[in-house]
């Protein structure tokens, strides 16, 4: 077993609503090239294993893993695909290095959402075909029901959820990679069109295209190759019930399970004290609040209030989604978790430009796989 595992290279490309001039392969290639240059590695010579995260229906290709190796420099190498979020892929690379069998592993995630002509239909096909699909429930309707249950359970208000939108879209204006930045007032958000009450259109992340590649290394390689490795202090992931009929709608148990696993490895008992900033799921604005509570960073029903008070703002004591989150950067499908992790790495390196946070040493990234799943992952990083 290897001791510590670090991220030694990051690369990304896209982050735009549409990328008509690039195929998914070209997006992946650009991101990979930048990550390999950033790490100072040659994929054919140095990288020993590769992991992609992808889902067939998002790609419009069955057995999509066929099309992963060429543009990553992974031909005739140990490469595999995880049908999960980017943070699941990162956890996989973490485990591969921890076995001692591999010292450098690359992880890739991408979205070419603009290629999908029938997104609502595709996403609806994720519902249980026997018990849920015959009800013909729209994906956002499920999110609206969950939001309503969360608001009731936690005494959170629609205003507090809207505050998340104001904050994240404002943060996104400082992020050149975020296409959905905006200067909105609380009233702008609340007066927007409803999507599935109490959920509004402006509280829902729009899709974007993009690709992200991270290069992961063992402690020995990281110290040899990088003068600013970002250490992976812990990784966790968990699933709750995939069926709509038998899950706890108010609380995100998949977040709790993942966080417990990651905190245990990182030796964190009091997350609010230990963590300097977080990048968490905000595919819907209420998710940020629900997730922060499930992470144990705030108590049940507290996240909305502390958001109103500005605690999670860029200059607050625990900034959340300084990147703009998915509301600002777009829903990148299976790459969402890698987008969150990338921001944590950039902040910890001091490379976050005009949105750079002062004195940050430990950051947390979290992701969710979207409706109808109850599946997500957590990773904790330190510099």
């Amino acid at each position, binding site marked *: *077993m*290897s001791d510590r595992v670090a991220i030694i290279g990051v690369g990304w490309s896209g982050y735009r609503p549409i990328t008509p001039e690039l195929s998914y392969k070209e997006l992946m290639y650009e991101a990979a090239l930048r990550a390999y240059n950033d790490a100072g590695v040659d994929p054919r010579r140095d990288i020993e294993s590769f992991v992609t995260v992808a*889902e*067939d*229906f998002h790609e*419009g*290709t*069955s*057995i999509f*893993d*066929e*099309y*992963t*190796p*060429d543009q990553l420099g*992974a*031909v*005739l*190498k*140990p*490469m*595999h*695909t*995880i*049908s*999960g979020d980017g943070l*699941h892929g990162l*956890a*996989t690379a*973490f*485990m*591969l290095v*921890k*076995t*001692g*069998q591999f010292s450098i592993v690359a992880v890739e995630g991408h979205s070419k959402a603009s290629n999908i002509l029938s997104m609502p239909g*595709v*996403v609806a*096909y*994720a519902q*249980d*075909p*026997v018990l849920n699909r015959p009800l013909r429930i729209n994906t956002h309707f499920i999110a609206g029901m969950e939001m309503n249950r969360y608001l009731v359970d936690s005494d959170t208000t629609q205003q507090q959820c809207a505050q998340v939108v104001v904050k994240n879209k404002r943060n996104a204006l400082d992020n050149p990679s975020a296409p959905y930045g905006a200067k909105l007032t609380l009233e702008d958000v609340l007066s927007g069109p409803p999507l599935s009450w109490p959920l509004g259109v402006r509280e829902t992340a729009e899709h974007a295209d993009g690709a992200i590649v991270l290069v992961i290394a063992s402690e020995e390689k990281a110290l040899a190759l990088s003068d600013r490795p970002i250490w992976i202090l812990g990784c*966790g*992931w*968990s*699933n*709750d*019930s*995939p*069926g709509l009929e038998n899950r706890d709608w108010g609380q995100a*148990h*998949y977040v709790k*399970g*993942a966080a417990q*696993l990651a905190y245990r490895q990182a030796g964190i008992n009091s997350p609010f004290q230990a963590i300097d900033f977080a990048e968490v799921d905000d595919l819907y604005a209420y998710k940020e609040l629900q997730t922060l509570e499930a992470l144990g960073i705030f108590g049940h029903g507290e996240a909305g209030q502390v958001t109103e008070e500005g605690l999670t703002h860029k200059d607050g004591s625990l900034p959340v989604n300084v990147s703009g989150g998915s509301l600002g950067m777009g829903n990148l499908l299976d790459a969402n978790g890698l987008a969150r992790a990338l921001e944590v790495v950039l902040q910890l390196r001091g490379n976050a430009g005009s949105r750079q946070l002062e004195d940050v040493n430990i950051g947390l990234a979290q992701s969710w*796989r979207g409706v*109808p*799943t109850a*599946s997500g992952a957590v990773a904790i990083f330190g510099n």
Partner: protein
Amino acid sequence: MSMRKVAVIGAGMTKFVRRAQETGKELSWQATHMALESCELTMDDIEAVCLGTAPDAFDGVHMNGEYLSDGAGAWRKPYMRSYVGGGTGVFVPIQGWYHVASGMFDLVLVVAEEKMSSYFPHAQGAFLTIFDHTTERPLKPNLLWIFALEMNRYMQTYGISKEDIAQVAVKNKRNAADHPSALLGDADITVEDVLNSEVLAWPVNRLDVSPVSDGAVALVLAAEHVAKRLTDKPVWIEGVGWNLDTAYWTNRDLAYPRYVEYAARMAYDMAGIKEPRKQINIVEPYDPFDYKELHHLEGLLLADRGQAPQMVVDGITQRDGDMPVCPSGGLLGVGNPIAAAGLMKVAEIFWQLRGEAGARQVPGQPKRGLAQAWGDLMQVGTVVIMGR
């Protein structure tokens, strides 16, 4: 730093059938339940779950891994689905291996499920969308056609006859007659039966190819200290390997599966195997087509190039031969629910090494076995070596 040792301590499998009445979730649960019973554990003991299943298009379920998760016992547990096309069945125990070898978990459940019969009218339709959307899909290729190209290339390169290749189908379907879960076991099948079956895409006849099937298989993996506490017959995962070649399959020589060789070399290195032909006692290479068993024996360096057919003719690969190959009956005999079929091969090695294979038991108390799978566009090799 020495790598953590990982053992297989339990296995279970459903029957492989043409049309299961159960949903994919239920099949997963059945296999999981049997695997846990075999080592007297319950889901409460399991720390993480790894799942393998092939294209979502079969089930028509987007994010099929999420859908199957509770059937595979992953409720409120760390759970991930890995995916390398047809190679998935032998990859998913590799995924379980790195879950344990990394030190993250001590007891991991590995499940492979496939339900191909949901696809109407025939699961082959799901394969129409595996081809490159720009260069290949407009030609409307079919999976059987491209494998027929590969078989033809293999035959032409080495001057191999269809009669010799058909002997693989005969051996495996006869072996499968002894497997209680088999779909196509036939103790009386002959080479003539194979050669006289209808031509699907020359040189592939119907009995050269494995059937569309439904089924599930599960294994329980344990870290060394836990395995020794739970069983006195652990089967150790000694080596793993996987390798993915370019998507541009039209640019490579189809006569030899180089990616299988690379995967095998990785596994041999890890297992410290210098002379595989002497050190591997039983082999379960991937045999969705009869020629593939031969092709893979060569890629695994267990036969010289073009010489694998002679091993079959000489009876070396029979269950009582010097190197039994597919004593389970393989995909040709037991059936081919894609991911589950690969994991069935790993389970077979587990049962053979423990002496629990019943009527299929290979004589001579084998010490070490190898399972291998293959998939994507004739592109990926996955290898697991186990010993006791």
